[in-house]
């Protein structure tokens, strides 16, 4: 049958995560090179890559509710924040001002996702009754409510301007902060974090792929395309909209928890409107409604500014000569990219990838 990759004898085979060997092959190649990178990259790049992977997870989350189920969500950053502080409470150390239970990573990581999901489910009755611009406005309001809570729940967040330390990095009671020795291989903390992020990203990435092909995923797509038609098809709008929000928040929460651990701490002011909008930008640049899109978008978002900064810094020009600071230049260029993408390739980086792939897939024809 290897000569007939397109001949499907069952629906199960047709809708499998990797329907053909080519995709399996590239997935494995990517995975092996991802593992390999860990041993050659400098700490600076390793942290950036870890960051990119985690941002991807959060972006997948937003992509599920917005790209897949078509519900505008301007408050994704808040859910990331909830995951962040949930992890800090569960896994962090208690001090005079903040509470903490010093749990294991295996507990606090899923729990922080679940708590974010729970909050998502709690607010979903409001959200699922609205659509379009109204939903956008409600979620916008939620950003400010969230900010307010973050600033004032000092016992959880450490308070505005101060923040708190991240959760402990321990698995099965083994403290990983000072690294880990496996045989004669010594892994730094950064490398461990990279691996954990990679593992979680792979699992959750396959999770998204699986979701897209499942009944739930198809229901989401039906709601996105036309909610009334979806309802007529027997899809329970309330239930599926809530589920999409819950899954989305779970992804956000998990990403938030690991992000905080990577950077060591977090200040409540981080999770403002701009932070939420960043994720929207990532999904747009990457390509909404796809699995690969947010991954492209996140890597672009994280690595591209780093590249610009590198270039600006190595140019040896002072700030006076450049008028803008490196951070400002980075923001301006990034903003330009968002505009350009919306005008020229609304399908995002994934769209470019898709066109390229089709160019070769249709060979020697054009369609």
């Amino acid at each position, binding site marked *: 049958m290897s000569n*007939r990759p397109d001949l499907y004898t069952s629906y199960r085979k047709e809708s499998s995560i990797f329907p053909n060997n080519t995709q399996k092959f590239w997935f494995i190649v990517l995975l092996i090179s991802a593992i390999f990178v860990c041993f050659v990259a400098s700490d600076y790049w390793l942290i950036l890559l870890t960051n990119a992977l985690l941002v991807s997870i959060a972006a997948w989350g937003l992509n599920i509710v917005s790209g897949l189920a078509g519900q505008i969500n301007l408050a994704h950053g808040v859910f990331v924040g909830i995951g962040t502080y949930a992890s800090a409470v569960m896994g962090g150390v208690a001090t005079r001002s903040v509470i903490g239970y010093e749990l294991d990573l295996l507990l606090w990581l899923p729990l922080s996702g679940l708590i974010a999901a729970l909050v998502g489910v709690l607010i979903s009755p409001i959200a699922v009754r609205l659509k379009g611009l109204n939903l956008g406005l409600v979620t916008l309001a939620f950003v400010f409510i969230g900010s307010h809570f973050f600033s004032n729940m000092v016992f959880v967040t450490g308070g505005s301007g101060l923040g708190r330390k991240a959760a402990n990095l321990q698995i099965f009671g083994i403290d990983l902060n000072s690294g880990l020795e496996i045989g004669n291989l010594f892994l730094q903390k950064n490398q461990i974090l990279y691996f954990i992020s990679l593992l979680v990203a792979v699992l959750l990435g396959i999770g998204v792929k699986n979701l897209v092909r499942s009944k739930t995923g198809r229901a989401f797509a039906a709601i996105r395309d036309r909610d009334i038609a979806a309802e007529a098809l027997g899809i329970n709008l309330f239930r599926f909209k809530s589920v999409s929000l819950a899954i989305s928040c779970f992804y956000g929460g998990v990403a938030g928890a690991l992000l905080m651990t990577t950077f060591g701490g977090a200040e409540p002011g981080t999770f403002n409107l701009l932070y939420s909008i960043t994720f929207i930008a990532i999904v747009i640049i990457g390509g909404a409604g796809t699995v690969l899109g947010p991954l492209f978008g996140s890597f672009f978002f994280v690595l591209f500014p780093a590249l610009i900064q590198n270039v600006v810094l190595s140019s040896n020009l002072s700030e006076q000569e450049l008028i803008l600071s490196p951070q400002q230049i980075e923001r301006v260029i990034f903003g330009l990219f968002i505009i350009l993408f919306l005008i020229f390739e609304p399908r995002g980086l994934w769209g470019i990838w898709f066109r390229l792939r089709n160019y070769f897939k249709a060979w020697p*024809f054009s369609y």
Partner: protein
Amino acid sequence: MLTMENIFSEIIENGGSTPCRKVNEIASRFPERVAFRDKRFGIWSEISYQSFWDQAQWVGCALNYFGVDRFDKAAVHSENRPEWIIADIGIQSIRAITVGLYPTNPPSEVKYLLGHSETKILFAEDQEQVDKALEVMDELPNLQKIIYFEDRGVVSYKEDILMSWDDFLAIGKEEYEKNNNFVTSRMEEIESGDVACLIYTSGTTGAPKGSMISHGNLEWCGSIIPKLSFTPGISNPEFLSYLPICHIFGRLIDIIVAIHVMGTINFAESIDTVQRDLAEVQPSMFPAVPRILERMHAGTLVRMKDASRLKKLLFATASKLGNFSANRRLEYGDADLPAKVTNFIAQVICFRALKKKLGLLNVDNAVSGAAPIAPEILKFFMNMGVPIYEGYGMTENSAVATGNKPGSVKLGTVGVPQPDVEIRLADDGEILVRHPGVFLGYYKNEEATKETIDKDGWLYTGDVGEYDGEFLKIIDRKKDIIITSGGKNVSPSEIENNLKTSPYIKEAIVIGDDRKFLSCLIGIEYDIVSNWALRKNIPHTTYRNLSENEEVQKLIWNEILKANELTSSLELRKFRMITKELDHEDGDLTATQKAKRNVIMDKFSDLIDDMYK
């Protein structure tokens, strides 16, 4: 693991057997082997040989239940689908006779075919075919039951004569459980001289004639499979069934060859999806008729026009390399090194991907038959590296007569005689064929039988041919040859095929019998000409409107001039457009999509007269 060599050597050792016996044998030896793959809602569901044989036996038992005895007839009126073959094998296994009807047969022809064959049971595919039979049922006293495969639209019908395939099989199963040796013991009785099926010729002139093909004919066809021109090199018996099984070519491939080599027959989802299904199945053996190859050729050229410059350039380069390679192969054989190198490059830059798109990637051997094909079309595929060989045969000789084969190809000829086939040319050039596959005669038509088979067993084919070296070349149907008023003999089919090489031309009928010069009627390929017109900003609405457009006429005239250059005999001086699409139901085409010359000449006599005014 059973390889094709094992299968072939087994056939050489044991000879051929009639299809129903073969199915029984495979079912007992390899019950799990996949017999059919049927595409439903995008998924290919598989049916094993065991299940195939079980169902065929149920059909046999149920037929017996409804009073179908030895030598009674049962007809199948359906597109290709597993039930077609299951019913066919079921009918043959109880020594009854299968009659095949074309799905496009209109009610009047259904009436003629069922009436002439005295069919007792009809298997009709769906509402469309059931309606045709019901319309003429009153005039068919022998018809006792109509079994339908698809119940959509038929469920509400009240006629007692109707029964669904599932109910029919359920009766068969019940009967089978009462006496499970019935079919096998009846099958033992079958003798080589028994008629297995009636194949009605499409009848370009007059009423269709029912050719009686015997079990012996089928056995003989089975026995020569390993030596046939189009079987060497097949690595894997995968087939796509799309040629009508009621036609001898489809039957030869699907029921004789595919079953004999224990192959898997894939059924396309529908006529419209053949191209896509072909790309999914990637069959290893591809029987083709000129019409399909012409369409593939035209489709490829048209789609290439839309491709980007780079792709166009690579296609052009690959075509040149492929042409060089194919010419070397024809001249020096397959082992020629320059041919291999150029072919390799052409494959890498373009043809491999193209073949995959067309579904020809795994084709080890392809045969073109059933009608003459223009050498340019064959060359196009050979350039692409598809091993395609033209063959020659007809209903009356079980479609086996001659064929080009790997290592022995001459374009424009139909090759050398198949194994055990004797060929002779009569004094007037008519091709005579003699072999054990020659049919028994026309059903209920002694006179026509006598005209076709002489007392020594020579079959008069009605085709005029000549030898080109050892290769046989068909000139034309004897009755179609044109003699101009200047006394020159012209073969219209050669010119017509040269015309049909153009992607824009679908139908061409050359006229000139007893006239001063040659002219032709042209039917355009609507999709492609329409696409061309869109590009040129030529507004158009219907087929007629497009045909009558002056720009289109200019385009066609240029295509005719090109065809004239290829033609060795007289050139075409004038043409007229046929302003309607030719159609089987209107009587313009035969069921196999061949133009009925006399009908068309009659219908469009005003156009013809206009040309010779």
